[in-house]
């Protein structure tokens, strides 16, 4: 990483959002960039790609998802979506279209910055990096395909392991149902959400200290699952 501060582009039409995000980002060590419309934001990304983008889905000049698709054509960095809680479909669509994560309005700055960090880390670490992930008493060795809980081996079926591996690789990030199903069961089963429910249930039984209130494999209602290891 360069000594330069990472640049974060905020694309939002609400001036009030910029008003508090700019000082917050600055205080957290980023360099905030401001765009009020999608067109403006896309132009800025094209000119000089920022290190991360925070994109509001409700923009006046363009549908947020459309802006996302256009940005993804030439931008590979992390994109975090700002959206309202009642817009599930929008969030899922955005994630499936290539957004890294989302934050629901109203949000605390800490939450947004945490998501930003996870996304940035996931983008930087390509496959193979960080082969061993620890989460509480769990230790997952992605190279040897070994899962231990408090030092003892946990027996997982191949599918269960595959599912866990995908979640762990994207740890900290939300993975949509469709993304998980496509990765583990193949595109033909992209809509079979009940598979996920069953297998996530199995994983929680085997891995979670209290399966009824999971700490590691967290449900994002209506959207997908997120693996949390801190």
């Amino acid at each position, binding site marked *: 990483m360069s000594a330069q501060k990472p640049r974060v582009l905020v694309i939002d*039409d*609400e*001036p*009030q*959002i910029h*008003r*508090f*995000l700019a*000082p*917050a980002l600055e*205080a*957290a060590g980023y360099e905030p960039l401001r765009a*009020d419309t999608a067109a403006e934001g896309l132009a800025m990304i094209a000119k000089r790609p920022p290190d991360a983008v925070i994109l509001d889905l*409700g*923009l*006046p000049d363009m549908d947020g998802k459309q802006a996302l698709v256009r940005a993804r054509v030439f931008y590979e960095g992390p994109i975090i979506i700002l959206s*309202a809680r*009642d817009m599930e479909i929008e969030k899922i669509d955005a994630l499936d279209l290539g957004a890294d994560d989302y934050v629901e*309005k*109203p*949000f*605390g*700055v*800490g939450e947004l910055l945490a998501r930003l960090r996870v996304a940035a880390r996931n983008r930087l670490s390509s496959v193979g990096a960080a082969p061993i992930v620890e989460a509480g008493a769990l230790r997952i060795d992605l190279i040897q395909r070994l899962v231990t809980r408090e030092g003892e081996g946990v027996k997982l079926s191949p599918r269960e392991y595959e599912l866990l591996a995908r979640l762990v690789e994207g740890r900290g990030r939300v993975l949509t149902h469709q993304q998980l199903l496509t990765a583990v069961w193949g595109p033909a089963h992209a809509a079979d959400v009940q598979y996920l429910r069953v297998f996530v249930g199995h994983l929680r039984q085997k891995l979670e200290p209290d399966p009824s209130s999971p700490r590691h494999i967290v449900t994002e209602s209506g959207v997908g699952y997120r693996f949390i290891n801190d």
Partner: protein
Amino acid sequence: MTHDEPIRPDPDALLAHARGQGRGRLKVYLGMAPGVGKTFEMLSAGGRRKREGEDVVVGVVETHGRRETEDLLEGLEVLPRRPVEYRGRQLLEFDLDSALARKPGLLLVDEYAHSNAPGSRHPKRWQDVEELLAAGIDVWTTLNVQHLESLVDVVWKVTGVRVRETVPDSALSAADEIELADLTPAELRERLHAGKVYVPETARLASDNFFKPENLTALREMALRRAAQTVDDQMVGAMRRQGIEGPWAAGERILVLIAGDGTAGALVRAGRRLADLMKDAPWTVAHVERPNRPTGDARSARRIAEAFKAAEQLGATTVVLTGDDVPTAVLAFAGRNNVTQIVMGKSPDSLWRVVTGRSLDYALLRRSGGAALHFVGPGAPDADSAEPASAKGRKAGDGVGYLGAVTLVAAMSGLAALLDRYTTGADLGMIFLASVLIAGLAWGLRPALLAATAAIACYNFFFLEPRFTFVIGHATDILTFAIFIAVAGATGWLTGRVRDQARLSSRRASAVTALLAASRRLSAAATLQDAAQALAEQASAAAAGRSVVLLPKAEDLILAASAPAAVALTTADMTAARWAWDKREAAGAGTGTLPQIGWTFRPLIGVRGRAGVAGVEVDPRGGLDEERLVAALLDQGAVALERAELAAATVENEALRRSDKLRAALLNSISHDLRTPLSTVMGAATTLIDYDPTLKPETRADLLVSIREEAERLNRYVGDLLDMTRLEGGALTTRTEWTDVRDVLAGAIRRVERRLGHRAVVRDFPAELSAAPLDQSLLEQAVVNILENAIEYSPDGLPIEVAVYEDRANVVISIEDEGPGIPKVDIERVFERFRRLEEPSDRAPKDRKGAGLGLSIAKGFVEAMGGRIAAASPIHGARGTRILISLRKAPPAPMPAESP
């Protein structure tokens, strides 16, 4: 039916039975002749029922002054008769409406075959009875067998009396029970001689003939057979209902062929008798139309139409067959429909047709295969079968041709005389032949034949040796003459045929064109009213008479359209129209219901049910074609009306959908408008919490200000929502005080001061202003909303002008901004709720917050105080918006003023 499969109840029989459920039961006392004691028996039995405690009422009974009958009426309730004026005489008729209103359990109605006085609802009493049964009232009635429609011919043949009061056979078949009132002919004659039988004066002449023992025997046999047959029918019906296999002749099908002559009615009745004998075999009445020989005159077309109507009443289906060759068309139909019996008239065929094998009788005899043929001789002539008037018309039409033929031959004779000296006699024949040919081509068969005769005469007289005599000199001349006749025949016939075909096809074409035009107009009609009007106009054009369309509205029919405009309907017309609507059958002229009015009303029945009623004024000259055209039109019209109705419903749905959309947009907007300030508050607060030490002082101050501002915005928005809810829920109470409007305006301006930015508020207040009775806080909120709207919609730096002035009755507040103004199309809607939601993008201009509630709340508040609010834009050239609030100085009437 194969025998190994279980025998199921016959669905038709079940259906017919089901149709009878809920109806009253009909019992008919059937007799062979007057005087057998039908009424007596009916009244005795009725009296017994009454004594057993049943609700028995006498609707109408003719006692003919007989004591023994009158005695039976003792103790029975008798409905009063309805007086009817007819040709200066007062008739006492059965009162159908009071019978329906009284609704007894059992009603006794004498003389089933009675014809009602003109002006009654139904022309016949059996139709009254039908309505009573439909209303669930049991009816007993009496009937003499000679009144049965299918027996009219037989009775005429046997007794020489043509019965005019008839009852369709179906009306007797509808009886649940038939009781035969029987006497031997000898006993009846005894009663007759003893004066115990009432015979109307008018019938006395015929009576001696009528009551002859052999006639009575024949009539008695008919009555007995009828009664037996009905019992048989009922048994068969019951068996079929229960799925009992029986010997009923399945597969007997009867085809009755009718032509446009006077025998059509007799043939139809013969068909009915045959159908009865074959246990109600299905029967069809057909007329064959030949494309090269149109039905011709309107009279025979009407006869066929009437015969069809009668046939349908008697339970037949009707069909018009088309074909050049009648036997082929008939046999094709018979083959397709498994016809086993063909009924036809004995036609006086020409020897020519018999010899060439083109006689219908002969052709059918030869080719009918398995079908039995029944030939019916001319029966009682149909009531109206006088010499067709149109035959005369045809002759008159040919008159021109005859005159032309004679003139032509005369001219040719002159020409021949001129050429006589240059040529021989044989060549002159060609000149005459030419005249025959021309006459044939120009005027058809008969004039051609006349021309041929005249030509032969002239040619022979003037030019053939011996001249100036009609003596034929050479045998070869006879051949010449024969050729003349043959040429006349051939050309005349061909020309006639071509002409007839052209006329027929042009008539068909015009009918098709009319239908097409109607279909186009009907499908173009967007609203119910348009469709009704289009239908009325097309029907009027097709029927060559006036036409109306009535549509249902609030349980009644209203006149929706007429052609020509402004047709008035009488009460009787409306009654017929309602009848057509209620009963789903035609009423008025040419039908069994209210036939005396000039209109025929038909229900418009579309795919989903009744759409309305169409009335067409009957043109008595109209033929079958016109009727069919009108009927086809009305079918189209019904569908078009239905479609228009559906379209209206769609518009309604659209409105609903729009309001749903609005609600969704409202939710969306609330979500956005509440969450954005909340995000700011939360984001700024968390920034302060997490990064306080690293923040510059001015940043900290700015974050804190933004928290306050956004909290205020949130508060305003919640306030708006609450105000709206109060207005919507009717929970708004006003507290009226005498107020100086200037104070309220100053307060409102103070409230928006901080949001003004660099916009100056220019005040234009008079030094003196009358006080007005109003609710201060409501007015202040209204003004604040208007000011906020002005701030939102006008660029920073431009002034906002607030003025107040008064006229005689009102204090007027004017608030102007210099923003871009409101487009003309939207000016009407600025005060609508959530107007902004319907803008292309609900977040279109930046910095415009709120769901657009402000102005609608202002309007609600102003109006709650009895004031008025209006918007004008643009006001300064192409820019600017002015909102005017007008408040009355006197307290509004419904609100008592409080002391100042």
